[in-house]
């Protein structure tokens, strides 16, 4: 590019050498300060590094004290294994660590730290005191470092463990000091960091004192959910449900808690994800979580999730950045699938309804439209069926009995259905030679069909549905209809109002999806093939993704260079923005190793079809029709929300009603 170009200015180019320059080794203090620039960004990074060292030292109690937002003082005290004097002296040298010794260890890092950079980096930009004593020694060691230079070494009497005091952070790097925010902001960063640590280690007591005031005190607990209660509060706690234990995918397992769709917030701050115990902010994991919630949350809303992902050491590289909140996965597909299924498969079951069903039963007023069969199968000991009928069955983790849940059984049952039983909106008439199109022709999509709930199966017979899970909607007693748009029902301890359009829509959508899944291979040729000129990155991705697109129903030919020609599209997407979907999917494939764009686009079309195919305006329903709808609601996934994420039902507890009438 010409230097004359007025729009092109590159400072680095102007500083490039025009003659050989001499090369010199940097003094250690300067080298440490440079390294500190990466490791020690702000007080929160100091706290993070020191707390992680405490955890790696086996501490069961960690106390963090700060003053002036961490700028004036940071003290981290633990009851870990401590260090001997010679080890403590070595710890302040760069690249000195007890956590790895050989190159192979880099690929099996189980500890939180390993680089041997944190302590010397912190020491080089502050006044630091390290006091440490192993349990088997009577006296500890005190080391004082100022600006990276060791000033004092002496014996000290102290409890077993390590206490590190960092004062006047960045006192010798004023440029860095200028970048620090207000003490309140820096304190917030430290609190957020400690919350993450707290969630990752419920077995460790964590105290945080700011300017002499206790800000956080997390006692040791046995269960993660108890720690969540302490950290995220009752509101989040009440809305969390355990993830589905999906079998390991290439050794990757995701487990933890997720919030029900009714609970959401405007920022993704409550999405805590840990890889091998380390807090990680990763795009693939986030994409999988948001993918699991698609159609359940409105755009711009985020769930609360605390998720631990176990990944074989060989599949993850944590040596990407000194801060170690980024990791690199060798293959992102298993990560995406493990996270997605852990949440989506549990969401599909709407476990928050089970509690209400159980409550109804326990109060002895349960009325089932389909209860006989359900109870019968419970008697036969079906592990996943009728969880609401015994108190113990409702406990988180009951699905451990089987590797897959009721949803998978339901889907496989749908796959076994006689094709004639359900008629697809994409159904092709049998093609005969006389009918033409013998080479590639296909019956085109017809107008979106009007969904007749009676027509597409799911009759309200006394079978309890194929779901094999706790019935809720079918246990409700229908009181009547309000404004011909809402079905008013009661359960044992409250009044339940059901949006009949949303319920119809969800039933229609799930049925369409099931039908489509079996016949999604149907494609439609484009009248004029679409030439797509891709940039170099997308072109490289496309050359590897041809199989992916072919499987999704896109026929794409390489036209030479970076040009590809789209010739056929999935029939359901014949009116979709093809080029945009393909380019977005290519970007996803490059970034995450997988993409759900095609599926999302298809579901968006199906969702629209479902919406248009059911009665939208007020419609009078008979009692039987209301009850039939409720039974069908129990037979489908994601029964608590319509395909657009709106709730299907609203429940007013009896207690609330009584309070409103001053009866309590």
């Amino acid at each position, binding site marked *: 590019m010409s230097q004359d170009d007025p729009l092109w200015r590159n400072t680095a180019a102007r500083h490039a050498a025009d003659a050989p320059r001499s090369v010199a080794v940097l003094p250690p203090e300067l080298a440490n300060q440079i390294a500190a620039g990466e490791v020690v960004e702000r007080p929160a990074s100091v706290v993070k590094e020191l707390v992680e060292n405490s955890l790696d030292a086996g501490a069961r109690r960690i106390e963090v004290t700060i003053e002036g937002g961490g700028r004036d003082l940071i003290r981290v005290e633990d009851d870990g294994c401590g260090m001997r004097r010679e080890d403590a002296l070595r710890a302040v040298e760069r690249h000195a660590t007890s956590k790895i010794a050989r190159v192979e260890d880099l690929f099996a890092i189980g500890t939180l730290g390993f680089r041997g950079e944190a302590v010397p980096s912190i020491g080089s930009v502050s006044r630091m005191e390290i006091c440490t004593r192993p349990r088997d020694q009577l006296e500890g060691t005190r080391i004082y470092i100022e600006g990276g230079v060791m000033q004092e070494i002496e014996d000290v009497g102290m409890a077993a463990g390590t206490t590190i005091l960092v004062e006047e952070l960045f006192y010798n790097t004023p440029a860095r000091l200028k970048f620090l925010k207000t003490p309140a902001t820096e304190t917030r960063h430290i609190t957020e960091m400690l919350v993450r640590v707290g969630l990752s280690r419920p077995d460790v007591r964590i105290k945080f004192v700011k300017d002499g005031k206790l800000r956080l005190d997390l006692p040791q607990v046995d269960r993660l959910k108890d720690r969540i209660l302490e950290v995220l509060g009752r509101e989040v706690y009440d809305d969390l449900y355990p993830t589905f234990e999906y079998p390991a995918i290439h050794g990757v397992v995701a487990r933890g808690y997720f919030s029900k769709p009714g609970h959401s917030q405007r920022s993704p701050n409550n999405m805590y994800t840990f890889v091998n115990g380390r807090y990680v902010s990763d795009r693939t994991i986030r994409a999988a979580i948001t993918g699991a919630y698609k159609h359940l949350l409105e755009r711009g809303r985020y769930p609360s999730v605390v998720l631990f992902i176990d990944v074989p050491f060989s599949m993850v590289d944590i040596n990407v950045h000194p801060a170690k909140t980024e990791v690199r996965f060798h293959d992102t597909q298993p990560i995406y699938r493990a996270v997605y299924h852990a949440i989506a498969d549990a969401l599909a079951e709407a476990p928050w309804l089970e509690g209400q069903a159980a409550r109804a039963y326990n109060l002895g007023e349960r009325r089932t439209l389909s209860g006989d069969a359900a109870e019968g199968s419970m008697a036969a000991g079906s592990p996943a069926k009728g969880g609401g009928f015994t108190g113990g069955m409702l406990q988180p983790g009951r699905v451990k009995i089987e590797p897959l849940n009721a949803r998978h059984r339901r889907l496989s049952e749908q796959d076994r259905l006689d094709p004639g039983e359900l008629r697809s909106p994409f159904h092709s008439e049998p093609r005969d030679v006389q009918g*033409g199109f013998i*080479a*590639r022709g296909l019956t085109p999509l017809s107008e979106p069909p009007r969904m007749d709930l009676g027509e597409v199966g799911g009759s309200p017979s006394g079978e309890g549905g194929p779901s094999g899970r706790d019935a809720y909607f079918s246990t409700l007693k229908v009181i009547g209809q309000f404004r011909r748009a809402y079905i008013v029902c009661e359960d044992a301890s409250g009044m339940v109002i059901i949006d009949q359009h949303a319920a119809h829509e969800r039933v229609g959508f799930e049925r369409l999806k099931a039908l489509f899944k079996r016949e999604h291979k149907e494609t*439609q*040729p*484009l*009248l004029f093939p679409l030439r797509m000129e891709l940039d170099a990155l997308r072109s490289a991705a496309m050359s590897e993704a041809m199989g992916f697109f072919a499987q999704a129903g896109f026929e794409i030919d390489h036209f030479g260079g970076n040009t590809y020609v789209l*010739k056929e599209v999935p029939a359901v997407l014949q*009116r979709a923005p093809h*080029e945009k979907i393909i380019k977005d999917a290519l970007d996803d494939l490059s970034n995450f190793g997988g993409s759900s764009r095609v599926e999302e686009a298809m579901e968006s079309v199906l969702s629209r079809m479902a919406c248009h195919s059911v009665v939208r305006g007020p419609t009078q329903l008979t009692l039987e029709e209301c009850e039939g709808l409720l039974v069908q609601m129990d037979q489908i996934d994601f029964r608590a929300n319509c395909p657009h994420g709106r709730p299907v039902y609203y429940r007013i507890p009896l207690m609330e009603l009584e309070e409103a009438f001053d009866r309590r």
Partner: protein
Amino acid sequence: MRRTPASPIELIERARSLAGLTLAELAGELHIEVPATLRRHKGWVGRLLEDALGADASTAQAPDFAALGIELKTLPVDASGKPRESTFVTCVELAHPDDIRWETSHVRQKLASVLFIPVLSEKGIPPGDRLVGQPLLWQPTPAEEALLRADWEGHMRTIRQGYAHAITARDGEVLQIRPKGARASSRVWGVGPSGDLELIQPRAYYLRTGFTARIIARSFALST
């Protein structure tokens, strides 16, 4: 000119491989010059595609791919897939109408199996820039054949009575008859009102645009 395809599948595959090319790209492959305008080169597009696909018709009445019994029809369409003109089928047999039955008629033979190749022909697009679309091997459904037959039989009744000259382009639901000749003064032998043969203006069968539009619409999606 390429080798004649040995089977309908080979023909279709060959046609599919042309889809997405411009006529200039296709003509370049065949070393054929592209005219600046089609005004003085009527039929150039059809001949280009016949050459590219290896058509082997020896007579005007035989299908373009005689061995396969498949007729090739290029279909000029606009960007929304709507045909821009009616589709020529074959000349009307005016001389001995009493001897012809639908089953053995040229119209029936020509339309028994047609390979439609849409070509993007928007106004203002030079011939070389026009895009070749995806092929469609069409055979009339029973309902379509019934429509074609009803129109053909209606036309033939009029012709047998000696009133061919009275048939206008408005007659026929899907199959129309229009004058066709090299010049306006062209004449062929046909039955006159008296029942005797006389010289009358030549005519030909055309598929109406609405008919071909329906075939295209139900078979293809449009890129968006």
